[in-house]
C-alpha cells in the first residue's frame, strides 16, 4: 500500500542500493536486506544499545531510525570496524585480550559505541568510558572488563 523507494547508502565504505518501504527501521534493513547481522536486535525501543551503528559520524540506535530517513548517508556497522577481512581492529582485539566478551550479544553494540567514544574522545578516563557506554546494556554484567578493554585500546592508540 505504501510505495517502496530505492535508497542509496554507503555501508562500511561500499555503495549499496536497497528498496525499502517507509516503515522499515534501519536495523531491519541492515540485517534482512543487506545481511549485516552483526548489528543485533534486542529491546527494539532504544534502551539497550545492541543495535548501535554510526550514521554520518554519529552513534545512533538503528532500531529508532527509519531507513528512509538516512537515504544518502554513510553507515558503519560492526562489520565495518576491522581494517581488512583477516584482521580485527585494535579495539576489537582489546575486547578479546581482556576477556570482555561473555555471552557476546551486546558486544557489537558495545564495540561500535566504544569506537564512537574514542573517535570523539581519544583519551577517556574510566568514568568517561562508563558514561560513553551507558547506553549499552550487558545482561552478563561484564562491564568492568569492557571498560578495561576500551581503556587498553585507547592506550594502544596513543
Amino acid at each position: 500500500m505504501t510505495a517502496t523507494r530505492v535508497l542509496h547508502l554507503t555501508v562500511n565504505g561500499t555503495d549499496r542500493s536497497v528498496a525499502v518501504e517507509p516503515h522499515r527501521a534501519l536495523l531491519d534493513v541492515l540485517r534482512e536486506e543487506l545481511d549485516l547481522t552483526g548489528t543485533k536486535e534486542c529491546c527494539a525501543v532504544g534502551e539497550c544499545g545492541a543495535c548501535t551503528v554510526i550514521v554520518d559520524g554519529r552513534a545512533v540506535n538503528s532500531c529508532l531510525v527509519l531507513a528512509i530517513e538516512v537515504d544518502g548517508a554513510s553507515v558503519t556497522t560492526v562489520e565495518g570496524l576491522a581494517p581488512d577481512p583477516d584482521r580485527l581492529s585494535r579495539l576489537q582485539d582489546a575486547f578479546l585480550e581482556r576477556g570482555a566478551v561473555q555471552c557476546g550479544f551486546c558486544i557489537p553494540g558495545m564495540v561500535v559505541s566504544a569506537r564512537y567514544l574514542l573517535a570523539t574522545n581519544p583519551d577517556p578516563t574510566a568514568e568517561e568510558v562508563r558514561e560513553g557506554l551507558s547506553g549499552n546494556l550487558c545482561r552478563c554484567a561484564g562491564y568492568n572488563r569492557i571498560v578495561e578493554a576500551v581503556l587498553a585500546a585507547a592506550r594502544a592508540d596513543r
Partner: protein
Amino acid sequence: MRAFDYARPATVPEAVDLLARHRGAARVLAGGTDLVVGLRQHTLTPRLVVDIKGLKDLPPAVTAAGDAVVIGATAVMADLARNPVVRRHLPALVEAMDTVGSIQIRNRATLAGNLCHASPAADTVPPMLAYDAKVHVSGPAGDRRLALRDVILGPGRTALEPGDVVTAVELGVPRQPVGVAFARMTRRRGVDLASVNVCCAVGADGVTRFAYGAVAPRPFLVADHTGTLADPGAAEDRKAAILEGLIANASPITDVRASQEYRIAMLRVLSRRTLATATDRLARAGGRAR
C-alpha cells in the same frame, strides 16, 4: 511497524500543508526517539510521517538574540550540550540534556520533540520552564508564539493542533544575574526516565523558582517571592516551611519507577540540592539575593 507513507518536505509551509491535509493521521518526525517507539509498539499508527529534517527555512540550531537564545526544532541534544552559547547562558538545560537517554538517544533527540511528546518526566522541560521558554509554532493560520506552560496540557497532550509544526524553542536569558541548576533522580544511570526531576532558578531580585517534573500530570513552576529561600542566612525552619508549601503543589503517582511517598521525599532532597547549587551559581555570577 504498521505501514505508513513518508514525506520529507523542503519548507515549513509545505510541512504545515501536508500535516493539515492529513489532520490527525499525520505525525511529525524529528529525532524519532519517541515517535519510532510509538510506531513500533503500535501506540501510534499514522498514515503519514512528515520528516522535518529537510526543512530549509527552519531557524538555525542556535541563535543568540538579545534576551533570548533561539533553538531550531531539529537541533539535537548532543550538539546543543556542546554549543558555547547554550553552555554559557543555559547551564541547567545542558545538565538536563546530558541526562536524557543515552549518547545514542542524544545524538538524535531534539528539545522540540521532548516538549511535543509531553511526557510528565521529560527532563528538558523543567529547565525550559525555568528559562521561560516560548514555543514558535507554524500552523495553517500562520505563525504564533506560545508560552511553554500553555503548550503542555497533560501526559501526551499539548495545545498544538493538527497542521502545527514547532519550528523553534526560545529560551529567555535574564537581564539580572541568575543562578539555575538541574538535578534528577533515576533508578539506574543510563537510559532511564526520571523518578523526579527539578530545576531551580534563584534571581538577584530574591525570587526563587522551581520547575518540578515527574510529580504531576505535567511539569510545573512554583515560586517563593519572599526572598527567604534565596537568602543563605535565612533560618532553616523558615526555609523548610516555605519549601513544604511549594512541594505541596506536587501530586505524584505511584508507578514502576517510584512510590508517591518516595517521590515527595526525593522532591524535598532535590529541591534543597538544586537550591544550594543555584544560589552558589548566582553568587559566582556576581549577583546576590536581597
